[in-house]
């Protein structure tokens, strides 16, 4: 039992409610898109599979192909080469250098990007330009990227989008901590549903149970999420200003680990296939990313990153001497030797993304994230329903239903925009996806104005989401996606698995639309449980 004075408990309860109500709608949007973003890799593989499963993301023969491609690009782009697998196992190889565009304060990547077939190593696409501009033409990853970007910055330009999501992370942290402190009988409340009391109390109990069990996870997500948002938008520029006179490149070099002494003499790169094989053997995992600095020079350095092996939390970074291919060291994510700061920063990624134990940890993160959505939505509905005597709060309740049930519908229609755009041959797919998302948001907003009964509105939106989810696999087929039999025979298990998940989700939404209400709180006529409880303390 947590003992607080009545005055402090009231302050914390007010902070808990207002942090949720003022930022709750946006926070709900960030959590919901984050739940989907957990499966970003799988969404990419589902929406744009190749004809066969990719077994080796860095296949033998990549060494020869990269040497060949290096001869076809301007040597200034040899400064940096990034290699990583994308949707369907396609390999992206980006030869680039760093230039500062006119009017920008920091350098950006500019160069030539190749997209390679992982089995044949055939060049599927070649584009030259700024990394961000090239990304707009990434047809195969467009759906996953759109959803991830919605989670990371709500599609608001940098750094403002990151600052907004960072603030939302802080609000979530406040809601989690105050939620812990205001519920005095925490252990008891983890198991209490007063079934035979008023509907409001039952719903309040359900909110508290879900929130209490979910509390450690919500805190972890909020902390790590606000770290990621603020680190790049505010932390790195501020630290660069204080410690490096504003030079962010120097700061990154310092914290990542200083590059070898400069030697511009020409020297062919060592055997990359052998380096990838060595990293695979050391980590007992496939490489996930490789970075080569000064390709074709005597000071070339190759860094191979692998995901954590079974039973591990932290990924591995192996450094190789470029010309000889000799293993140099395993380095931490940050710095050249283990440190407290490096270890703390290394933990942020796996704790936020839940990708440390493959599909199992992702599924757990998805489920806990879904519970966070439930907590955020029911919390807002409880808060507004308890103040439903006021017309302003009744309007707020409808706005909560609009976002709470309309956003899933808008998100479910994003794949529709993607597949329709792709089947019509569009090369930039952000526009059709944005149109689908915004048009649905506006249409559901109009519906919110027209349908006065909140429960009816909720049912409409749920039914729409059900239809949108059930329709997505069909549209995938129309846009030349593989059928289940051909996908299974090519070991593309992600395709039918996600189809089934969408169909199941759609059926559950339709069932909820026609079933008995479990979530929406009717206009409040019950007492104020939480405030009454605090007042009694």
């Amino acid at each position, binding site marked *: 039992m947590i003992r607080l004075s009545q*005055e*402090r408990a*009231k*302050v*914390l*309860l*007010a*902070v808990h*409610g207002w942090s949720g109500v003022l930022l709750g709608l946006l926070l709900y949007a960030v959590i919901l898109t984050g739940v989907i973003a957990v499966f970003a890799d799988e969404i990419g593989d589902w929406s744009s599979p190749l004809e066969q499963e990719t077994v080796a993301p860095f296949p033998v023969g990549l060494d020869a192909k990269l040497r060949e491609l290096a001869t076809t690009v301007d040597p200034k782009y040899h400064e940096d080469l990034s290699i990583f697998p994308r949707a369907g196992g396609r390999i992206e190889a980006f030869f680039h250098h760093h230039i500062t565009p006119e009017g920008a304060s920091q350098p950006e990547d500019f160069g030539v990007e190749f997209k390679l077939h992982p089995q044949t190593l055939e060049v599927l696409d070649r584009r030259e330009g700024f990394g961000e501009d090239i990304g707009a033409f990434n047809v195969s990853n467009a759906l996953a990227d759109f959803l991830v970007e919605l989670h990371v910055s709500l599609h608001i330009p940098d750094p403002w989008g990151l600052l907004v999501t960072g603030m939302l*992370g*802080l609000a979530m*942290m*406040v809601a989690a*901590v105050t939620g812990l402190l205001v519920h005095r009988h925490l252990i008891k409340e983890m198991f209490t549903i007063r079934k035979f009391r008023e509907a409001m109390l039952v719903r309040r109990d359900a909110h508290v149970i879900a929130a209490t069990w979910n509390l450690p996870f919500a805190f972890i997500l*909020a*902390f790590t999420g*606000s*770290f990621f948002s*603020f*680190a790049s938008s*505010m*932390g*790195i520029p*501020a*630290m660069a*200003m*204080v*410690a490096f*006179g504003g030079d962010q490149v120097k*700061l990154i070099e*310092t*914290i990542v680990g200083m590059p070898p002494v400069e030697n511009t003499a020409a020297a062919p790169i060592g055997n990359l296939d052998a380096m990838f094989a060595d990293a695979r053997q050391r980590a007992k995992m496939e490489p996930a990313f490789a970075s080569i600095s000064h390709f074709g020079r005597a000071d070339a350095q190759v860094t191979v990153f692998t995901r954590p092996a079974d039973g591990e939390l932290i990924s591995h970074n192996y450094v190789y001497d470029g010309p000889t291919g000799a293993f140099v060291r395993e380095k*931490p994510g*940050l*710095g*050249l*030797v*283990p*440190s*407290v*700061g*490096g270890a*703390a*920063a290394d933990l*942020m990624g796996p704790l936020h993304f839940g990708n440390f134990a493959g599909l199992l940890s992702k599924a757990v993160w998805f489920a806990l994230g879904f519970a966070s959505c439930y907590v955020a939505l029911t919390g807002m509905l409880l808060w507004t329903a308890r103040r439903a005597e006021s017309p302003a709060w009744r309007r707020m309740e409808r706005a909560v239903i609009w976002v709470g049930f309309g956003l899933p519908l808008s998100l479910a229609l994003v794949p529709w925009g993607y597949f329709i755009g792709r089947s019509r041959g569009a090369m930039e797919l952000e526009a059709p996806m944005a149109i689908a998302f915004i048009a649905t948001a506006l249409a559901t907003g109009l519906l919110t104005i027209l349908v006065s009964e909140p429960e009816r509105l909720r049912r409409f939106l749920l039914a729409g989401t059900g239809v949108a989810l059930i329709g997505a696999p069909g549209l995938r087929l129309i846009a030349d996606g593989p059928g289940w039999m051909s996908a299974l025979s090519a070991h593309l298990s992600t395709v039918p698995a996600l189809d089934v998940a969408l169909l199941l989700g759609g059926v559950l939404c339709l069932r909820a639309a026609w079933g008995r209400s479990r979530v929406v709180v009717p206009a409040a006529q019950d007492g104020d449980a939480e*405030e009454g409880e605090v007042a009694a303390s």
Partner: protein
Amino acid sequence: MPPSAAEKSGPGIARRWSRGILAGPVAFIAAAVVMAGGALWVPKGAASIDNIVLPIVLFPAIWAALFFYTSLDRNLLRAWLVTLGLLVINGGMIAMEFVGKGAAA
């Protein structure tokens, strides 16, 4: 939370505004300045990066500590003094660093 009779009065409203400004924008700015100042006083550690990385990683915790302290301290004047003190000390260290670099250049 419904305001009490005292809080509905003129001084009560001013006090609520003062606390809101302190716990909101002032606490956030103070947390950002403490984070940036940390580059100068946090030990560098084995890899010479802790002074850069730890304040960035711990920024949400620094902000949360300041937010809850400024929201809950009954003595509002003390909360203002502590927060502004942190802001001035860290801001002063950053200013001295810039002055020192300017003089060296």
